[in-house]
């Protein structure tokens, strides 16, 4: 994983170079083939439809650089950080670089996805190589012009110099450079020479965001476009029996009402008219399949936990034997509800299906897969599909699923007009693709003061933890170790939600370790360090995390949080978790206010390798941690007869300003290749908070949301 100053790569990493008719140089590069062999694609690869990334950079004849970033921007900051990497190696002033959102282009970009916190990790080598290769081409062009050897020239800050003191700007030679062969054996910069990477760069869309310019899917409009509100079955397991659109059609502005499948679209001249029209529909919904209840899910998941016929996902040693020989056994069951994503920008999409082409515009994390599905759905060639991505008002996994884009395309195809489907908040929350409800049961054995066995069972709705998770900590650290999973098939739609599975698994395991530490009479941080000392990095290649990096991260968090020496009235909880290739440790400080926990501060240590853009990186960690605390504390979502019980923010509680802790973030300093930050800050937060509440009150929390469990115990925590 060590960075190399010199990386040999072949021309196959670059998929095209050309001189532009308008002047300038265009270079295309392929993220995936440029990845080192050791770089593994994210585990959920088939599910996320996540593969290789390609992108283009254009150097204009004034030397200014544009990167067409293929990766959708959902607030994770890649639209800023990825161009920084190119600018560093190309050696141009950061002010001369701009970034444009690439459109979906199946000829030139094979797959474009935001997901799994992988953009920076996969882009690192390719972006650097592209910048450095382009720089060398510019130098070669200048050398040819001067008739000197290129090795006697150098370039920085957009200026090429030779030994005679001559200077040329990148713009002076860019058109010549575009005609040159792509050079090989490029030398990359050493991290100590970085001028852009490692320095704060503010969000490239900043001015547009703070002055209210149209950026998001919901802001997109065309002349003659019709707004659409869609009535979908209010409960999972329902279909349309009959409907009466008379009242809806009489609403001012409503132009058309059409049924498609078990949904009804109301088309109107404004969003408000469409929404009013939808409310005026009289629909008789009929039962189509089981109308499920949260209480049924609880029973089904418990049955799975009690069963002995689950899928074994990893097994080391002999857990049964370790349990039989134990001095002591500890067992806990942890429960979490479904969760909606609740992106602030509700789902929406624009579609204009004509005989010539299919024009689609909107916020989508998986443009290529969605375009394919739309082509299939409306029986068109993929070449007809022209998809533009907008900035996204949050993703959190919800916009991996293109259901809303398919609806827009289908409605436009039926009604032969440009349409924009807009979900109301109620639509967004009730037609979700939710984080599934999950239960974990963990059992561990202690013998002679050591943890000798660890058995984790997962019972989840619809699907289970992805392939690599069983190889996360404590795999490798405990001799006898077993992970088993099973699921219950529900008609409620479920999918990825920021840090899939680990967003709850980390809470379960990290709370459990706290109990183990207490049982062993050892400090909670020390227990992790002791367990990690059993792991020799690289010995078992299936182990996903690095024990050394985790130890360094834990020690940094303990030091910065003053672990074990907190001030009076402050109670601390600790958790550490590796996910999405990044190691994170967190200490939560709470106080008790009128007997209720008040989260004061979270100290976070992160090893994500080189930090490309520190301000953006801290933003991701601060957001992930507060998101994790908010959902652990308040996130609650249940079903009665297939119907979601909350559909708006008057009853569904999201964390707000007054409940927000101060987050202090520290990065482990090293020169290792960077990894992603969109997700890894979230998983440890819930566990660290639960452990702090336990430290303050003795209450052991096993169910999310915590607020509900604390209230149901009617415990006066100040007592």
């Amino acid at each position, binding site marked *: 994983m060590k960075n190399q100053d010199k990386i040999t790569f072949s021309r196959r990493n670059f998929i095209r170079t050309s001189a532009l008719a308008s002047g300038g140089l265009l270079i295309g590069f392929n993220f995936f083939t440029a990845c080192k062999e050791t770089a593994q694609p994210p585990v959920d690869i088939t599910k996320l439809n996540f593969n290789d990334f390609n992108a283009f950079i254009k150097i204009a004849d004034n030397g200014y650089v544009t990167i067409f970033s293929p990766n959708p921007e*959902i*607030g*994770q900051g890649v639209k800023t950080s990825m161009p920084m990497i190119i600018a560093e190696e190309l050696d141009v002033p950061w002010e001369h670089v701009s970034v444009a959102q690439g459109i979906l282009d199946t000829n030139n970009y094979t797959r474009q996805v935001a997901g799994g916190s992988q953009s920076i990790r996969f882009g690192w080598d390719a972006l650097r190589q592209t910048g450095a290769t382009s720089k060398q081409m510019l130098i070669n062009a200048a050398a040819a012009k001067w008739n000197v050897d290129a090795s006697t020239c150098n370039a920085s800050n957009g200026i090429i110099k030779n030994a005679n003191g001559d200077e040329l700007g990148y713009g002076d030679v860019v058109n010549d450079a575009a005609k040159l062969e792509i050079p090989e054996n490029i030398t990359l910069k050493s991290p100590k020479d970085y001028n852009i990477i490692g320095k*704060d760069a*503010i*969000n490239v*869309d*900043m*001015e547009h*965001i*703070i*002055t*209210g*310019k*149209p*950026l*998001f899917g*919901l802001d997109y*409009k065309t002349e003659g476009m019709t*707004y659409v509100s869609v009535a979908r079955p209010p409960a999972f397991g329902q279909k349309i029996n009959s409907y009466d659109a008379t009242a809806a059609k009489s609403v*001012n502005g409503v132009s058309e009402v059409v049924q498609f499948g078990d949904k009804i679209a109301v088309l109107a001249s*404004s*969003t*408000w*008219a469409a*929404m009013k029209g939808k409310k005026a529909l009289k629909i008789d919904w009929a039962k189509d399949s089981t109308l499920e209840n949260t209480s049924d899910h609880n029973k089904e998941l418990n049955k799975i936990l009690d069963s002995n016929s689950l899928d074994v996902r990893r097994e080391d040693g002999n857990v049964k034997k370790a349990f039989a020989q134990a001095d002591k056994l500890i067992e806990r069951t942890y429960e979490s509800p479904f969760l909606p994503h*609740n*992106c*602030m*920008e*509700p789902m929406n999409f624009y579609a204009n299906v004509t005989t010539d082409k299919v024009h689609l515009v909107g916020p989508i994390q998986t443009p290529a897969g969605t375009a394919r599905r739309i082509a299939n759905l409306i029986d068109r060639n993929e070449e007809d599909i022209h998809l533009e991505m907008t*900035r996204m*008002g*949050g*993703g*959190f996994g919800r916009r991996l699923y293109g259901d809303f884009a398919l609806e827009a395309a289908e409605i436009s195809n039926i009604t032969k007009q440009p349409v924009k489907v*807009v979900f*109301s*908040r109620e639509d967004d929350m009730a037609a979700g693709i939710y984080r599934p409800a999950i239960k974990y049961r963990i059992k561990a054995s202690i013998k002679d003061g050591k943890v000798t066995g660890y058995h984790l069972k997962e019972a989840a709705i619809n699907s289970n933890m992805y392939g690599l998770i069983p190889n996360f900590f404590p795999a490798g650290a405990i001799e006898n170790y077993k992970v088993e999973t099973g699921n219950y098939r529900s008609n409620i739609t479920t999918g990825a939600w920021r840090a899939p599975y680990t967003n709850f698994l980390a809470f379960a395991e990290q709370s459990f370790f706290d109990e183990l530490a207490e049982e062993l009479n050892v400090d909670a941080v020390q227990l992790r360090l002791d367990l990690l000392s059993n792991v020799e990095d690289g010995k078992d290649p299936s182990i996903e995390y690095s024990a050394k990096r985790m130890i360094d991260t834990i020690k940094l968090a303990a030091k910065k949080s003053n672990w074990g020496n907190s001030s009076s009235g402050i109670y601390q909880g600790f958790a550490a978790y590796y996910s999405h290739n990044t190691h994170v440790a967190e200490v939560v400080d709470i106080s008790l206010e009128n007997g209720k926990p008040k989260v004061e501060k979270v100290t976070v240590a992160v090893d994500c390798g080189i930090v490309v853009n520190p*301000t*953006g990186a801290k*933003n*991701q960690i*601060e*957001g*992930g*941690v*507060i*998101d994790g605390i*908010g959902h652990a504390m308040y996130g609650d979502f249940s079903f009665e007869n297939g119907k979601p019980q909350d559909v*708006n*923010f*008057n009853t569904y509680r*999201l*964390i*707000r*300003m*007054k409940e*927000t802790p101060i*987050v202090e973030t520290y990065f482990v300093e090293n020169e290792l290749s960077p990894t992603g930050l969109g997700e890894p800050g979230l998983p440890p937060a819930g566990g660290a908070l639960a452990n702090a509440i336990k430290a303050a009150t003795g209450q052991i929390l096993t169910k999310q949301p915590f607020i509900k469990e604390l209230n149901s115990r009617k415990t006066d925590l100040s007592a």
Partner: protein
Amino acid sequence: MASYNLKVNGKEKTVNIDDDTPLLWVLRDELDLVGTKYGCGIGQCGACTVHVDGVAMRSCSVPASSLTDSEITTIEGLSTEKLSPVQEAWKELDVPQCGYCQAGQIMTATSFLKQNPNPDNQDIRNAMHGNICRCASYNRIEKAVALAAKKMS
């Protein structure tokens, strides 16, 4: 449908709308001022916050037809030549993540600082509590409001 005269960002606008149409949708769909965002439609999230006669108001929950005598200011009208101190503070501290809720946050903060130019942290937390940021950029919003107050003093 009826015709109403509105004064938005200092300009007179005539719109032909139903009298129950919330200001939010008039701004977004009729006047092409899409900086004001839709988040919940029931006044719970603050994404649609605008100023009516200088006071922060949830545009999703007020009919435009009731505002014919008022001065309406949206994020687009907050600054003309250069950024306002609140916008400057937002930029300086790199506040936004996805950015969707930030116009509403900035409008709430601007109105609040007019009423309370020297807030302490608790004042800021109370004032901003009604605006949801799903990316949870709350730490930076809190700091940016404090910085804006400093810039304005």
